[in-house]
């Protein structure tokens, strides 16, 4: 009779600048399934981890935006391909974290992957849909270009561990921003898995950074950070959102607060787009 095999347990780590470090603080915390069983040990990110992630996101933002829209679309589509081949693993974690039965969990993963595909198709449409030429009265060629806000902080949904996360991070990334995301505090593993997939999807290091940890501890650092241009407050309640909004005002950040049962998926896409208008003289 053979010896019973000891399973290999995985450590769920942070994603900073394309690498998977533990928290520099050395902290980790346990996360559980919806029914209360142990699910995993997860790195508990610190303020220092956040600042490292912001540095990475800032450093690569111009490069990400300078790559062609076609290329950015392919990178995001590649993420959908990676997720598709690891659907089962994602569904196990989404099901465990959110307390869904297998069919529901698979349906949620399928919607999330389809959503990634949807964003992949946006990268080279944004300029035409949200930009345009302006008929000014004078000898000028005048055009408005949508440009990314820069670095966007995402406080991802606490409940929707994968679908909510996908929307919150890919909307700004599709528009040319780079992201520092705080995953759901109690349901972080689907986001961490997606982060692992992004690392094999040709995402330049630093475009998507994922921190796991205690939202209330880390959110103020993101809201106040001078190098962050916008913040998505999906993952905090009304009171904390108001507080963070006040902090974010200190550096005139763009703030996105999702609406209840929103039916317009472009609202998030538009939230972190700027309009840059160029005038050029016309003459002989």
């Amino acid at each position, binding site marked *: 009779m053979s010896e019973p095999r000891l399973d290999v347990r995985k450590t769920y780590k942070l994603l900073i600048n394309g690498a998977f470090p533990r928290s520099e603080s050395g902290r980790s915390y346990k996360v559980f399934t919806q029914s209360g069983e142990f699910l995993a040990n997860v790195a508990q990110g610190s303020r220092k981890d956040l600042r490292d992630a912001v540095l990475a996101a800032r450093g690569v933002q*111009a490069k990400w935006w*300078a790559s062609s829209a076609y290329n950015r679309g392919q990178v995001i589509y590649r993420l959908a391909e990676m997720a598709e081949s690891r659907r089962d693993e994602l569904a196990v974690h989404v099901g465990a974290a959110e307390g869904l039965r297998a069919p529901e969990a698979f349906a949620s993963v399928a919607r999330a992957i389809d959503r990634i595909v949807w964003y992949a198709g946006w990268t080279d449409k944004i300029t035409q*849909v*949200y930009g*345009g030429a*302006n*008929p*000014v*009265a*004078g000898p*000028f060629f*005048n055009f*408005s270009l949508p*440009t990314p*806000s*820069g670095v966007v902080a995402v406080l991802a949904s606490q409940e929707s561990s994968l679908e909510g996360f996908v929307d919150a991070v890919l909307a700004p990334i599709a528009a040319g921003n780079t992201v520092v995301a705080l995953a759901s505090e109690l349901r972080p593993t689907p986001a961490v898995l997606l982060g692992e997939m992004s690392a094999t999807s040709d995402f330049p290091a630093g475009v998507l950074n994922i921190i796991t940890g205690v939202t209330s501890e880390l959110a103020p650092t993101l809201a106040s950070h*001078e190098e962050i*241009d916008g913040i998505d407050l999906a993952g905090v309640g009304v009171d904390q959102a*108001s507080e963070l*909004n*006040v902090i*974010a*005002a*200190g*550096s*005139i950040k*763009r*703030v996105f607060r999702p609406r209840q049962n929103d039916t*317009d998926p472009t*609202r998030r896409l*538009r939230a972190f787009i*700027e*309009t*840059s*208008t*160029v*005038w*050029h*003289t016309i003459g002989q």
Partner: protein
Amino acid sequence: MDEPELTNSRLGSLEYDPAPESTAIAHFRPSYGIFIDGRFTDPSSHEQFVSLNPANEEVLATVAQSSREDVDRAVASARHAYDTVWSRTSGPERAKYLFRIARLIQERARELAVVETLDNGKPIRESRDVDVPLSAAHFFYYAGWADKLGYAGFGPDPRPIGVAGQIIPWNFPLLMAAWKLAPALAAGNTCVLKPAETTSLSALLLAEILQQADLPPGVVNIITGDGSSGAALVDHPGVDKIAFTGSTEVGRLIQQRVAPSQKRLTLELGGKGANIVFDDAPIDEMIEGIIDGIFFNQGHVCCAGSRLLVQESIADEVLRRLVRRMEQLRVGDPMDKNTDVGAINSAAQLARIRELSSFGESEGATRYTSSCMLPDKGYWFAPTVFANVSQSHRIAREEIFGPVLSVLTFRTPEEAVVKANNTNYGLACGVWSEKGSRTLWVAQRLRAGVIWANTYNKFDPSSPFGGVRESGFGREGGRHGLEAYLDV
């Protein structure tokens, strides 16, 4: 840099006879009430403050100081008009009101220009050729949107937000009122507008025009007063949206105050625009563009090209020509049709310009100031250029909002972009080069909401205007400007 010669050209030494525009067309009442529910009414406190002509410090009229109670009445009036009239007025009908307003501004253009120049201190040439025609054009442009909102790219039937509180600055008083009111009304909102403390009179004349246009009472309310009136408007729970144009400092406070509420917010804030000059730029046009970029409207322009970045190889020649051209600017009576640079809008602003400029010298920059004669009365500051400025100098970092230019140099396009972006602001930049590919390369990398290539300080109602980073968010003008007033 070499010392530029300060000798005047022959042109600069020519004298012109005075050519003053008549002030007879402007009729000021001795005192003004606030405009609520379609009528001028006394403020609850009966408190008035004076509005001066900054060119000679003479009192033009007294204006009402709105209290919290007055703001309350104005918001209630706007809400009532929204619920009972404006939200039920069809797009085509709203459009016709706006077209009417545009036409009335055109018909009373001369009167508006004179009032604006007397109250603000800007040259009559500018209020006549820029402020007033652009104000009319803004109403005309947005009038056409009122019945076409479903085609603006925000879904088939975008809804207005409700009651908009709008706070505007003193540098383009009428034009900023038009920028705020026209898109708000086209989108179906009602408004409470607060002009700046020192420049209320053209907005009050606009109120008369709205009466003349038979705009339903309460659709636009105008409350005058200082910052406390604006704060009361920002804090008012009956307001659904705040639109503010002004300094980044105040914008930050407003964003903080609005943050806990569900109010929508757009901010058009300060800037420290870089005007980037490459060695192949057409030099005559470029010098005019630099001059216009900084001295237009006494430099009281949020998008002013207040940092000149000039390529090292042509720096000496550009500075020499710039100083010579600056000497030729005619500074003085704003009502004179030949005046290029008028009065500083207020004593407070003059003090700020003087203070910041003094840092220019103490931090080691080289100062060139026009030798023009300044009038004895009124608030005046001679056009000034600082050379040998470095990026850490306060005059290179802080918005002076006056006729003061800081000159810095660069060698490569990469360096120009890095220096241009080395600011928390991001409103406007200029790029001067004959090489289109380089201009577009630079434009792609500038973090700014507006980029002028081989021109500067151009505005058009169809062209979105607004900043990135700490210059604010939201756009005014164009299709994009509608988004600020729609629930989308």
